[in-house]
């Protein structure tokens, strides 16, 4: 039976009590959990009346009363092979239901610990308003995991974070998360993939925080895939110190409801931020990307390109905020959102939101929502390619522009394979 959000909240609060009782934690985390639980009582699940959730409702995702999954212990590395990317040499880190249960030997200069064992104090992220999902994340967190790359270290192989959700026995609500710290001048590539193990409904409430010290360079590919009952609420908070470069590549390829919040704070001068996104939605999938690039200091650059393809009854949202604070002179900020609608019923809401308080800046934005070009379709068909194949070819071409931005060839091939498969498209 489907639940109303209020009833679900009550059920959840009750569950949090039981869960907390049997999941011990260090004192600091116990405090955080208790605070978060208190906060949840005063918060409500998003409704369309909230500006930030105007076009997205999670009722479908929480209606099946997902609850935290049972703990799972011990995994066989062989079994993991199915979740590795073909041909990709990576350091794998496996997270099941939010707990890291396995990792390959870590390369030199890379550390992975629970927060309470972390040797140095982590710099406090800038406080920001936490919504109910972030509070739930904290209230049900078994432990904070921290991944760190030492200053000056270039990590050669990408770190592949495999997030698994165990929904084999019941509907689940998962808290995936990682705190990441990149030392001065460090270089690292991250890859995140997610998979469900079962068929029950799942809500993945993920929270990633990345801190980039001066002159560090981080590439971060996030691939979201799920079945028709799997939803994701994902936040990625990035804090960039001077001279750092962060590039995010976010691929939302399937699922029920996906809501992404990608929040970048450019806190030091001469930083560069690149945000690339590709979303493919069909049937009743809903994909919502909220991005925020916060230019807080002068002389920084951000580039943003999000592309989406919507078919069937799918719906999409893009909300791209760019803040240029009064002191952030000489900012260059670009934003593009381009969408292809493949059916009459598919809809897309796109809203660039530039708030500029400095005067000497270069900012531009643009968004398009269109259909496939008839002239191009005719050209392909006039060369003997059938209408469906012509369409698939053009959508593939549209989507591959974002895939091409990814630096790693195996990751690109993997993505192109999934996209081709979804489009029922093959070159041969």
């Amino acid at each position, binding site marked *: 039976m489907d639940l109303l959000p209020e009833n679900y909240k009550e059920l959840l609060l009750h569950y949090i009590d039981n869960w907390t009782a049997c999941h011990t934690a260090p004192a600091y985390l116990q405090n955080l959990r208790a605070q978060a639980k208190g906060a949840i009582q005063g918060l409500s699940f998003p409704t369309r009346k909230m500006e930030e959730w105007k076009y997205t409702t999670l009722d479908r995702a929480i209606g099946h009363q997902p609850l935290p999954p049972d703990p799972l212990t011990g995994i066989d590395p062989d079994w993991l092979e199915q979740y590795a990317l073909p041909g990709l040499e990576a350091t794998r880190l496996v997270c099941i239901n939010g707990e890291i249960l396995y990792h390959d030997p870590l390369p030199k200069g890379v550390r992975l610990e629970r927060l309470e064992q972390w040797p140095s104090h982590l710099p406090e992220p800038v406080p920001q308003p936490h919504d109910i999902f972030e509070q739930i994340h904290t209230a049900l967190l078994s432990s904070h995991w921290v991944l760190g790359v030492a200053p000056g270290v270039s990590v050669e192989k990408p770190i592949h974070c495999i997030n698994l959700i165990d929904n084999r026995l019941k509907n689940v609500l998962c808290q995936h998360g990682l705190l990441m710290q990149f030392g001065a001048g460090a270089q690292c590539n991250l890859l995140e993939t997610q998979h469900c193990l079962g068929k029950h409904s799942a809500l993945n409430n993920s929270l990633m925080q990345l801190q980039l010290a001066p002159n560090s360079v981080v590439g971060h590919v996030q691939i979201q895939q799920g079945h028709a009952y799997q939803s994701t609420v994902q936040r990625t908070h990035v804090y960039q110190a001077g001279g750092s470069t962060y590039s995010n590549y976010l691929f939302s390829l399937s699922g029920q409801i996906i809501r992404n919040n990608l929040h970048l704070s450019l806190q030091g001068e001469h930083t560069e931020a690149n945000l690339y996104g590709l979303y493919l939605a069909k049937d009743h999938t809903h994909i919502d990307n909220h991005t925020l690039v916060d230019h807080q200091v002068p002389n920084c650059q951000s580039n943003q390109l999000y592309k989406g393809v919507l078919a069937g009854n799918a719906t999409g949202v893009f909300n791209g905020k760019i803040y240029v604070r009064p002191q952030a002179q000489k900012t260059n900020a670009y934003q593009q959102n381009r969408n292809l609608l493949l059916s009459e019923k598919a809809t897309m809401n796109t809203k660039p939101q530039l708030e500029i308080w400095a005067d000497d800046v270069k900012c531009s934005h643009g968004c398009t929502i269109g259909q496939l070009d008839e*002239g*191009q379709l*005719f*050209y*392909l*068909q*006039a*060369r*003997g*390619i*059938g*209408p469906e*194949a*012509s369409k698939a*070819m*053009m959508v*593939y*071409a*549209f989507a*591959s*522009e974002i895939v091409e931005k990814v630096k790693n060839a195996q990751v690109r091939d993997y993505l192109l394979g999934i996209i081709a498969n979804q489009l029922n498209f093959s*070159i*041969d």
Partner: protein
Amino acid sequence: MLQIQNLHASVQGNEILKGINLEIKPGEVHAIMGPNGSGKSTLASVLAGRNDYEVGTGSVRYMGKDLLDMDIETRSREGIFLAFQYPVEIPGVSNTNFMKACVSAHRKHLGLEALKPNEFLKMIREKAALVDLDPKFLHRSVNEGFSGGEKKRNEIFQMAMLNPKLAIMDETDSGLDIDALKVVARGVNALRNSDNAFLVITHYQRLLEYIVPDYVHVLYNGRMVKTGGKELALELEEKGYDWIKEPQTAV
């Protein structure tokens, strides 16, 4: 091979083709000339199957079949090739992948086995060499950022790849420098044989010095108003179109 009888076509209620008659036999080269806006590209598009045009009365038979009844892609697979007056840019699709898709669709339709990757590579290299197409264009997106002349050359390259029975070339010569023109003509002449035919739309008799036509037709205001041999092209170049008014029966 192709019989067009009393073909009428209109776009948004305006009649553009007002009763075209034309017969093309295997081995022949036909040229169509005529002032701007007379309907040359419209005729080419209708033959290729573009559905922006409403075809009224009239019939088109191709290789014994009703052409107007065929899908766009079937026409191509059955051997009709249109070299576009304005080739379309397709960002994100490489020339090679495009040709791979075309060739395999054609071969499948014709019941031929798919080419092995190395056979395809050999073919694409040979045909590129035939039209002097720099191999770097094979990796670039179809026509994207190509110069006007490069686009035209790419059309002839595609034509060589698909080896059509009936090639319709819509102003392939415009925008070509004299060397490129010779290359295009060389490509066409290399493909020419007793089983295929060419319909060459042009404004300039220069091209027809290299691709010598059997017939020259004048299309004027939606009708074929004059037909002659290759010397007609020269005459038109000298005198313009003013002296041609009344329709005549085309061959």
